């Protein structure tokens, strides 16, 4: 299988005038839905490292095509937000499938390593501010060029999530309560922006200097930008470091200082908390979606099966936020 993939990579790279030998093609630990491969290309003069990101061609209801992720990353690069350089894009019909090749960015994306390893110790205190800045930059992208992305208001999105939850026929008193609570909230007055949709550790590359690159754009859409700020504060993305509200590494005040230093919209902590509840509900529904792919027989995956039992994490987080004064 690796040989076949290697051949397809070589052919694709030839299209963009990169000719060389494919070496050290290895799968990396990726998300539950994509294959990630790292490889090197050896030309006459040098050896360069690349990443292949490959979708299955069957996306969940919230995800965009992998090849569209590449288009989006190219657009985001234009405004100088930190994203890896795209080298080549392949559509589903081609040998390489729905995928793209990008330059490898040095650093770490695995959350537990970023939070634990000594190498990142000096970077962590800077990271919340840097994430705030990067999120604000993403929100400056000209959305008129992104016609492959769906546009959704917070209420549209909330209703979509609720309908999806209902379709799985697994009634949850906590989610019913959450839906009613969220319907009554003010999500902040703003203009439609590019929303990354999954901005958190795991989807950013961190070096000893801090934030290097933003990856994994599959949940991108156009909507209320504050969603990205609430999402990274969700307890699911603190990786056990409950006391550090932002991503398990930082303070909310620092994230907002970074965001407000660039953004034309000013955001306060209460608004982020509303979006945190929204994000936690959204992650709960995404867990249901992932588990349903296993339950309905479209894939047989222990990973996807296991994620069904993570829905209860989001229910407990919401109960903590709404009833017990959790942060």
């Amino acid at each position, binding site marked *: 299988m690796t040989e076949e993939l290697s051949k397809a990579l070589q052919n694709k790279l030839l299209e963009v005038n990169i000719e060389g030998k494919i070496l050290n093609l290895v799968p990396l630990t990726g998300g539950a839905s994509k294959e990630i491969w790292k490889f090197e290309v050896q030309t006459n003069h040098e050896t360069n490292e690349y990443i292949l990101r490959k979708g299955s061609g069957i996306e969940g209801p919230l995800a965009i095509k992998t090849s569209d992720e590449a288009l989006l990353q190219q657009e985001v690069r234009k405004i100088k937000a930190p994203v890896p350089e795209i080298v080549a894009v392949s559509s589903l019909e081609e040998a390489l499938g729905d995928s793209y090749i990008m330059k490898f960015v040095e650093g770490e994306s695995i959350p537990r390593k970023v939070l634990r390893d000594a190498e990142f110790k000096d970077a962590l205190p800077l990271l919340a501010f840097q994430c705030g800045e990067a999120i604000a930059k993403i929100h400056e992208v000209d959305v008129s060029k992104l016609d492959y992305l769906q546009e959704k208001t917070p209420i549209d999105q909330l209703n979509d999530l609720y309908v999806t939850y209902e379709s799985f026929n697994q009634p*949850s008193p906590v989610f019913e*309560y959450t839906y009613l609570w969220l319907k009554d909230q003010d999500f902040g007055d703003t203009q439609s922006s590019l929303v990354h949709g999954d901005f958190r550790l795991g989807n950013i590359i961190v070096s000893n200097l801090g934030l290097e690159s933003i990856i994994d754009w599959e949940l991108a859409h156009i909507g209320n930008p504050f969603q990205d700020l609430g999402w990274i504060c969700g307890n699911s993305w603190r990786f056990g470091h409950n006391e550090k509200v932002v991503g398990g590494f930082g303070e909310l005040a620092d994230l907002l200082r970074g965001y407000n230093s660039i953004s034309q919209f000013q955001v306060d902590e209460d608004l982020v908390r509303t979006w945190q509840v929204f994000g936690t509900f959204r992650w709960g529904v995404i867990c249901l979606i992932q588990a349903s792919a296993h339950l309905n027989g479209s894939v047989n995956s222990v990973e996807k099966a296991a994620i069904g039992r*993570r829905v209860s994490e989001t*229910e407990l987080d919401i*109960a903590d936020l709404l*009833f017990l004064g*959790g942060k």
Partner: protein
Amino acid sequence: MIFDKPTSVDLLAAINHFLDTKIKSEVPPHLAFKLRIVENVLNIVIREIEKGDELSNEVINLLQSLMESDTPSVETLALLIKEEKIDLEDQDLKDLLVTLSKNKIAVDNPNYSTFKKLIK
């Protein structure tokens, strides 16, 4: 139960031990990550067999007094909330939702940070 020892829990624990001591060191990194998920899944099943009845019964008892029904269920409560036929500000309801969530996570992932914080 008419079955001999080892119990279902003993059997699952033996599989987990085998994976942990004999297989883990043999697999490449991307499979080691999946192996950890497999071990977690086995532990969920072990906890559900061991504590599932007690954790469910505690919630059913609370549902019974909240809903004053002979056949209380999580599904019926979800419907009552959806149709707003229950006072959403009722403290007993909020307490029940907290207990329900805690008892589910006690099986699904007792190492979850919010759970550990709340039972401190």
